[in-house]
């Protein structure tokens, strides 16, 4: 341990977790390390601050906690979901779910589980970011412009300062192509349907005559000693993502018999939750506790399916629901709660940095309780995983919130774990 007490500063707006200029001191980080998306996110932060409104005072918050606990007390079917990214929140959430004998699945976990299910059926050949940067002699990028909209600094982060052939498969606009070229890649674009990419590659490796693309591509594939295939599971517009990944792995595995090849399957910040949930429970999410026994149900235990069922199929006996479902929404982001969740009518406990003001009361269900938290990585140091799942970082985002703070700025004192530890269920 070095005595240097400064906390590493990085951007947590996406899973690139770019680092500011560490040599510079002061509250604002050197901006050249960061991207334009980061500026857009400042609007999201401001929206979050506005949505907090006047923060409930500590007495009101304690009352909310008591109400939350009474809902949980009567709850029979407790489902925890949300956008969990930091290791701390993941840890506290998993412990709560176990205590509550509830179920757990992140919101929007479909893409993550495509990867999980592909791995659990047939494995994976992967490469980390710095390794890909150094070792790659051919980069194959599969996807479309949304990749760089979501992860603007990917080309810069992968650039080793020498010209590397890069094959862009999918549909790429000029801006994206330019970004790759500017980062030093010798980019060749093949406009194609990404769905068929693994099949085409497999076919080509079986016989050169079935090669669908121009010959330059074939030459590159012939010559490359270390091929990295890059995609982002959230930005891949394919049906049956799990099967797509398995086919791609089949090609990569074959290629490794006489040369080197691996995938840089870029993941969102939710990978932090998945990692922590895996070491704490053995499973990456989609778990439930039933009579003290942990069950993993990657196809059945899905937040969206549960919510849909609860919203449409609510048996009422007398005036009481017989199942007493409770949704617990845990959030590590500045974003607001998605409308289908708000309008589901299921009693809800929200543990999040963004408040509920501005949400239309008519669309809100019968009971919704907000327990305000600090935003991890911005208002309080936190631990995140980079999108390649290799690096776990600890620190705080560079820009101080104060620099963008609107009039209503108001910082909660609690982090999600503080509330989750105080939530009790039967």
């Amino acid at each position, binding site marked *: 341990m*070095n005595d240097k007490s400064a906390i590493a500063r990085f951007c947590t707006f996406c899973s690139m977790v770019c680092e500011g200029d560490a040599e510079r001191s002061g509250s604002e980080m050197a901006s050249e390390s960061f991207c334009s998306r980061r500026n857009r996110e400042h609007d999201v932060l401001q929206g979050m601050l506005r949505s907090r409104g006047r923060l409930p005072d500590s007495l009101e918050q304690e009352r909310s906690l008591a109400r939350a606990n009474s809902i949980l007390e009567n709850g029979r079917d407790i489902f925890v979901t949300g956008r969990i990214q930091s290791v701390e929140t993941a840890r506290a959430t998993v412990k709560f779910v176990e205590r509550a004998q509830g179920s757990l699945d992140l919101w929007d976990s479909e893409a993550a589980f495509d990867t999980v299910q592909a791995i659990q059926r047939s*494995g994976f050949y992967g490469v980390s970011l710095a390794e890909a940067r*150094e070792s790659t002699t051919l980069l194959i990028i599969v996807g479309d412009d949304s990749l760089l909209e979501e992860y603007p600094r990917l080309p810069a*982060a992968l650039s080793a300062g020498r010209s590397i052939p890069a094959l862009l498969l999918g549909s790429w606009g000029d801006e994206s192509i330019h970004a790759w070229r500017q980062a030093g890649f010798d980019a060749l674009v093949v406009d194609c349907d990404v769905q068929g990419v693994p099949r085409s590659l497999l076919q080509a490796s079986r016989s050169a005559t079935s090669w669908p693309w121009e010959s330059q591509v074939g030459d590159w594939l012939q010559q490359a000693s270390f091929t990295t295939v890059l995609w982002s599971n959230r930005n891949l517009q394919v049906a049956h993502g799990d099967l797509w990944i398995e086919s791609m792995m089949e090609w990569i595995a074959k290629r490794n018999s006489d040369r080197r090849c691996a995938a840089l399957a870029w993941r969102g910040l939710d990978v932090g939750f998945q990692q922590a949930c895996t*070491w*704490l429970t053995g*499973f990456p999410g989609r778990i439930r506790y039933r009579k003290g026994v942990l069950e993993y149900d990657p196809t059945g235990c899905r937040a969206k399916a549960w919510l849909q069922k609860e919203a449409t199929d609510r048996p009422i006996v007398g005036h009481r629901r017989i199942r007493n479902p409770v949704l617990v929404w845990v959030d590590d982001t500045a974003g607001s709660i998605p409308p289908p969740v708000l309008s589901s009518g299921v009693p809800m406990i929200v543990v999040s940095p963004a408040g509920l003001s501005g949400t239309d009361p008519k669309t809100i269900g019968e009971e919704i309780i907000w327990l305000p938290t600090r935003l991890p990585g911005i208002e309080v140091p936190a631990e995140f995983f980079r999108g390649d799942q290799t*690096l776990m970082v600890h620190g705080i985002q560079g820009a101080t919130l104060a620099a963008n703070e609107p009039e209503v700025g108001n910082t909660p004192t609690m982090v999600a774990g503080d509330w989750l530890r105080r939530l009790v269920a039967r």
Partner: protein
Amino acid sequence: MITKLRGVRIVDGFSAAGGFSAAGGLKTSGGFKMADGVVKSVENADLYMIDGVLSRVLPDGKKIDAEYALPGRTVMAGAIDLHTHIGGGKVNLARLLMPERPRATEPMRADKPWLGPLSCPVPNTWETGRRYLQMGYTACFEPAMLPANARQSHAEMRDTPWLDTGGYVVLGNDRMLLEWLQAGVPQSMITDYVAWMLTAHAACAVKVVNAGGIDAFKFNQRKLDVDEKHLHFGVTPRQILRALAIAIEELQLAHPLHVHCSNLGVAGNIESTLATIDAVEGRRLHVTHAQYHCYGKEGPHGYSSAASALADRVNRTPSLTIDVGQVLFGQTVTLSADTMHQFEHRSLALPRKVIFQDLECQAGCGIVPFRYRESQYVHSLQWSIGLELFLRITDPMRVFLTTDHPNGGPFTGYPHLIRLLMDYDFRMSIFDRLHPDVKSTSPLPSLRREYTLAEIAAMTRMGPARALGLENRGVLSDGAIADVVVYRDESNAESMFCDPEMVFRRGILVYRNGEFLADSVKSTIVAGMADSGRGADWYRSAANRAMWHQRYGYSPDMVMVRGEELTDEGRLIEANRVHRLV
């Protein structure tokens, strides 16, 4: 808080060569009983735990808070596993790869449900801590902490309850080091860098895995012998091993270079294993999972035991320690940073799925699920080689009990392994089930040695404590940390060691008869260094930081594990002893 254990039999680690070992010998006031011709134990003794520390006598005027009369029980220090994969990138990937759970038909102990099978070969952190404590283990060390994964390793160990933990940082395939060796920089630069890597990643030792070979595999090299050159950097494993061993000697680390040799699992690899030992030129060395590195090429299958050659070398070389990496039959998952050789074995995966990763210009990982079967020649051979090593190496202070969890089998197989060592007839009853070609050639039946309790204590407590520089662990002498395990004396060693009656952590009773009674304070063990300023010196150099940034795309600050990350919720950091050169 003062607790008294009355009338117990104290079994501490003695050197099998006779007499007391260097670190923490037993001081007693009578009551000796010769247990056999070689080692000793103390009968009918009293032991006090005073505010978390052991004492053989009660200071005047002190009041006892709790007293346990334990006649006929055997008491040992908390056991220490110095090589077990319990946290970090590949461990968690192995968990992810194996969601399968054993069918309910697998045998459970109805009388003691807590002794059932592990939920999977790489259990979650909570189950890991629980099952280790239930066997009387109180400190475990993750031996392959990739620098880029160090924070994650520590986070997983933090979430592993009851155990003190530490990690060994993996070096020797990091391109910064390889480039420096290629450039022929002065050793002092390498030593500074090693100091920094230990400091920054809160590691307590240095591990090298297939020196240079993991990186060579990234350049499509499929084999690298000790004197063979890495095709890109032109350096040999011998150069890497020597440079790291010198750095460790200069920093006076308690634990020597912890080496996973070249040619893991390859027939005939005894040659490169002995060459690896030679490469450090007489400096101290720990050879890990040695069973996987002592194969000859003889016999009908071109695969034979070279255990006697390695055991001879260990017996003749006081500066050498090993852990065995015993194979136990059944399902497991093998995981290693050694992508080169794991890749070679990928077709053996059962179930048929594998994970490989090339990681961060530092190393890699290969995960291959595996089922060891008695009917399979090589598996049978591996089982017998591991036991041969245990039985041929005379000093239990230098051979440690491991399965290289989960590689040779999950750690919950340790009590079974202890019985194999203590009970010749039991050993032979399993031997009889092996592949016929192993049965007809193995010298195992002629090795009639049976380990004594004191020898088991030496190889699971005092030996690893000494190898790691944990001065006040692994023994029951005055001043030691009061991590104490109470076993019922049973003729079946497996029953005895899988189910202690009580476990104390720092003097607090945390476990009794299947029930967990309290949490315990946990420590992270980090490296004590003769000159810990050398790591800070490395960090202060702008040139070094710039080189780091260029290599990885981020600054060293990004990966540096800070003290406050290891001390939340009352956790402690302890530095191990500095090794005094004699």
